[in-house]
């Protein structure tokens, strides 16, 4: 079940990305956090207890929403715009 529910922008142009290998679509104007959480219910697993996390402050302060791309690049989901072709991995336990 997705965590976030779109109230507007549902018909904006699509931006393709993959989430754990599955083809997904975000919308123009999405942050990476929005793009993931309108499809899934978590962003990552925590480093120590592998408990699910989905961000907290959404303003770049709490550092809870770091995710990894297939390339190994790390980024903060709440303050990064979604771009076409991103391959996002949420299943790896360690995002650090």
């Amino acid at each position, binding site marked *: 079940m997705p965590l976030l529910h779109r109230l*507007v922008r549902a018909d904006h142009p699509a931006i393709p990305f993959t989430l754990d290998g599955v083809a997904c679509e975000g919308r123009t104007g999405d942050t990476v956090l929005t793009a993931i959480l309108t499809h899934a219910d978590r962003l990552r697993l925590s480093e120590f207890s592998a408990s699910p996390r989905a961000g907290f402050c959404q303003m770049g302060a709490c550092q809870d929403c770091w995710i990894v791309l297939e390339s190994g690049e790390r980024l903060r989901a709440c303050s990064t715009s979604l771009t076409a072709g991103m391959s996002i991995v949420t299943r790896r336990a360690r995002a650090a």
Partner: protein
Amino acid sequence: MTGVSTSERPQPLIVGAGPAGIRAAQALVKAGLRPLVVDEAPSCGGQIYRQRLVSDGRSTRDLYGSEAPKAEALHRDFAALDGKLDYWPQALLWNLRDGRADIMIEGTSRQVAYDGLLLATGATDRTLPLPGWTLPGVFTLGGAQIALKSQGCAIGSKVVFLGSGPLLYLVAWQYMKAGARVAAVLDTAPFAAKFNLLRGLPLFPGIVLRGMRMTAELKLAGIALHYGVGDVRIEGASTVAAIAWRQDGMEHRLACDGIGYGLALRSETQAADLAGCRFAFNTRDRAALPERDAAGRTSVPGVYIAGDGAGIAGADAAERAGERAALALLQDRGLPHDAARAATLEAELASIGRFRDVLEAAFPFPAHWARDIADATTLCRCEEITAGEIRAAIGRFGVHELNRLKAVSRVGMGRCQGRVCGAAAAELLAHETGRGIEAIGRLRSQAPVKPVPLTLALSAQQQEAAE
């Protein structure tokens, strides 16, 4: 975007493009200076007047409600400064040393010499840990508001708002207006505390009445408002499933899939700390804050501070404090400045300060949190340290100072540098040692103030070595 000014005297640096930073920039430009404004967001406005990444059919009235004219004015006025200042959006100031700032922008770090530093770094939500607060679906009130305002998303299909402070009712009301389903508003403060708002009526009747109207509209919409909520537990296996609480000795439980949570705000003070500003404990905010005079001068000559980053006072105060601090910078440079305007701004700020005292009484801090927090509850989200582990560390090492507690328990040592857990760690340490919250020290800030890639830090050092 243009590069660093090459004029003989370096340009003033403004950190933050929210209400305080915008008004400060405007005042400096008006006086003929060309400041550099750095801001983490892609566009100006700060958190409260944050702009969308793209337009989405909503009006500014939809987004900012009664504050739409202020938001529009700030965005418009800042846009009008284009060409008269340097503006670096999506730029992170991550270090300050020897009159230079290290700023990460577009994947590289630049070192900027400045002459005059005006910090307008704003605030984030203050939260205190609860069982289940790390579950997906729990966001801060500010986070819930950003999801709605900036991204046009609700944080759940059945949302509960929890905590205290004006933002609690504002965000619940904004969700209701946007058509999201609000299941309940749970206020940790007792209903009787709200009578304090009557004292605020003569000061700012418009604000008090607007708050009352929002509360009435929530009630009319059938949304349950609960006061004096305690012993809150958030339940769920992999996401939020329900919230349970105690009220008047009775147990309550409500199914929900999203929770917005916050207990007023806390100042972002890392940059002031790195700039060497002296701090003092502030009773109203229950936090150590940079010392400043009425104009916004810190203890360090040439360093000024304005807005919520200097102590929580809200957006209206931030606009005034930003302009006031800019006037102080001009005065200290021996430039013409409008002394009458400065006096007016200070009087208005003092009046807002008195109103903040009223709000604090109406939305009081939950005094017994540290006594009641269960050992098993995760206190530090980054390092996943429980309240019990912190209590044990305090006892075992005889700790009575916050940085020492950080050293022995790792609380505040994680990626957020104590932004999220710092207030809770301080409250718990004060309670466990029987000291006042003002007597246990404050977490020292470290560069980089937010995570930056290791390669970036190297490039900054190399740049310095090359000079």
